[in-house]
């Protein structure tokens, strides 16, 4: 007897009603890039958005299945998945939960370097009145731990913080003790140029579990040009400090960051090679912050964003080539954006958050107790611009800091979802709102996106990354995924002649 089956339509009936889900689109490389509210994307043929808006998309097409899978449309067979989409959106905004995580203590303004671009109005190395007092340190620790975040990071910064090593030795044990009493996790990092680091200091950091973050701007000629100091030996001291730090603290407890000055722009490959030569596996191709002395000395260090983007693109190509050769080197800015594009995760990187991460995810406690929404806003204050000073540790508590006029003014323009130029942007969920940058560069926290360096940089970098994604070269995508997952680099495909 023949067994009868339901027809295939019984299991996958054609939808009776198709509805759109919110999405934004951009035109890239002769296609339309459709991005949903959670940042999931789909490259679709030209005309897709028009068809969707007109309600004439073919529900039997492969494209329709893709649109459903990417939560661009839903119908009576897929509406339960709306819960999934809501969960994905929540995951993307996870940085909003928990409160401020990064707390930067400026333990001194003193520094023995005199970098043109220095983001701090540095003081000479002998002026002790620019060190953080014990009373200010105590209040800062208390405010830091008032954050609802179950785990906080304390970054000890300057100036050059090692010039105030005594206050570091005061802060570290107290912060650890107080964190333990309140049941909070605590990471401590010291940001130092390492020029004055002694073995005793490094041993102290090892014993206290303090990690080291330092600066390396490239090979000697460039690093020393960017970072003048007596003796013109900043590079030699940095390299010596990195080697001793690795030997004492352990290899993985030492990281380096670079700053791109005008002098750097023609040397991206040499900078990258220097990081490889020094056995670093991450590099952050980041532009100079338009604050502090960088603004004051623009003619010495400044450059147009176009030139930085050329630098970045050339650098990323070189980094990919190095990875293809088997040496793992992650470019951090690309990694952050790729994580937002290719995974459900958001980012802890403050500059690419919306609502903006300033204050929500980072607070800066200056040596004199003033509290700022970010390190950049402290730099503005050093230029006598107090717009983003939220209060002072000796007068304020967490509530009054976050309800201060300075904070509320900033929060009002901190969501790119509601900013002109951003609200319709396909890249909105990958980007951020940076009221401090726009205040500093355009004199207006709200910002004017068509002339914004922030917008230009992120638009171009995101488009550049999407070009790689659309090209879908297995080697390149394998490298990107290795950066995101920590998995090994893809094996080099053998070439036949």
């Amino acid at each position, binding site marked *: 007897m023949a067994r009868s089956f339901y027809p295939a339509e019984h299991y996958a009936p054609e939808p009776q009603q198709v509805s759109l889900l919110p999405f934004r689109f951009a035109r890239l490389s002769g296609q339309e890039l459709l991005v949903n509210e959670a940042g999931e994307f789909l490259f679709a043929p030209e005309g897709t958005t028009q068809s*969707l808006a007109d309600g004439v998309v073919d529900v039997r097409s492969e494209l329709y299945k893709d649109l459903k899978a990417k939560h661009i449309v839903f119908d009576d067979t897929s509406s339960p998945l*709306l819960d999934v989409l809501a969960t994905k959106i929540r995951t993307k905004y996870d940085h909003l939960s928990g409160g401020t995580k990064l707390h930067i203590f400026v333990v001194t303004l003193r520094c023995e370097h005199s970098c043109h671009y220095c983001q701090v109005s540095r003081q000479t190395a002998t002026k002790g009145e620019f060190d953080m007092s014990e009373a200010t340190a105590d209040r800062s620790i208390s405010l830091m731990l008032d954050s609802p975040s179950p785990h906080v990071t304390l970054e000890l910064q300057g100036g050059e913080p090692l010039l105030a090593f005594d206050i570091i030795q005061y802060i570290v044990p107290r912060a650890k003790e107080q964190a333990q009493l309140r049941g909070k996790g605590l990471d401590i990092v010291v940001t130092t140029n390492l020029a004055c680091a002694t073995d005793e200091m490094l041993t102290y950091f090892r014993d206290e579990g303090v990690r080291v973050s330092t600066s390396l701007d490239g090979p000697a000629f460039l690093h020393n040009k960017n970072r003048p100091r007596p003796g013109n030996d900043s590079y030699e001291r940095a390299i010596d400090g990195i080697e001793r730090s690795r030997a004492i603290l352990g290899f993985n407890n030492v990281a380096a960051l670079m700053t791109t000055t005008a002098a750097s722009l023609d040397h991206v490959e040499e900078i990258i090679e220097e990081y490889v030569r020094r056995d670093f596996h991450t590099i952050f191709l980041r532009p100079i912050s338009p604050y502090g002395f960088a603004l004051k000395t623009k003619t010495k260090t400044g450059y147009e964003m176009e030139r930085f983007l050329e630098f970045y693109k050339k650098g990323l190509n070189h980094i990919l080539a190095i990875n293809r050769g088997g040496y793992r080197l992650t470019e951090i800015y690309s990694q952050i954006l790729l994580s937002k594009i290719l995974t459900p995760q958001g980012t802890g990187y403050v500059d690419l958050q919306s609502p903006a991460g300033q204050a929500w995810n980072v607070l800066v406690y200056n040596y004199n107790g003033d509290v700022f929404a970010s390190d950049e806003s402290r730099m503005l204050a050093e230029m006598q611009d107090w717009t983003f000073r939220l209060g002072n540790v000796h007068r304020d508590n967490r509530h009054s800091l976050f309800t201060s006029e300075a904070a509320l003014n900033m929060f009002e323009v901190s969501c790119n979802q509601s900013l002109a130029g951003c609200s*319709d942007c396909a890249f909105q969920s990958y980007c951020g709102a940076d009221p401090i940058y726009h205040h500093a560069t355009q004199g207006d926290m709200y910002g004017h996106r068509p002339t914004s360096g922030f917008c230009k940089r992120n638009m171009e970098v995101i488009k550049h990354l999407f070009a790689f994604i659309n090209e879908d070269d297995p080697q390149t995508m394998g490298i990107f995924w290795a950066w995101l997952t920590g998995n090994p680099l893809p094996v080099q495909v053998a070439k036949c002649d």
Partner: protein
Amino acid sequence: MEIDTQSPLPQGTVTIHVRHDLVSVDALLKTCYWFSRDFVCDVSRDSEKQSTVRLKPKAGSDHPLDEAQEQFMAAALDFALRERVTVQTLSVRDLLLAKAFSESGVLEEQPLGVFGDAVEEAKPDGMFKILSNS
């Protein structure tokens, strides 16, 4: 939309007539916003049905004027399209965001809105349920 090539124009200026049955005033202004980097955009409302835009390159702009005409019209139509998608998805967007944040405790008040999907309405913990709590 059409480009006016007949009227006498100041040198280096282009005039574009925009019909509002195709491109709303909002979509037109969004287009002008993005073109304001390279051009002075002089917008005048001719009638309820039409506006006229005059694009004049800013000093130092190297944006070719003939390309700008095409790009302006394409951008305006894209903003009109975005507007249509936004209108069609506004309610569900509000509800998705409400659901996303209410479960994490961020949103204290449920938004008003209408969600017309029968399957979702039938679910005891669906988005319609959350809406009906308000």
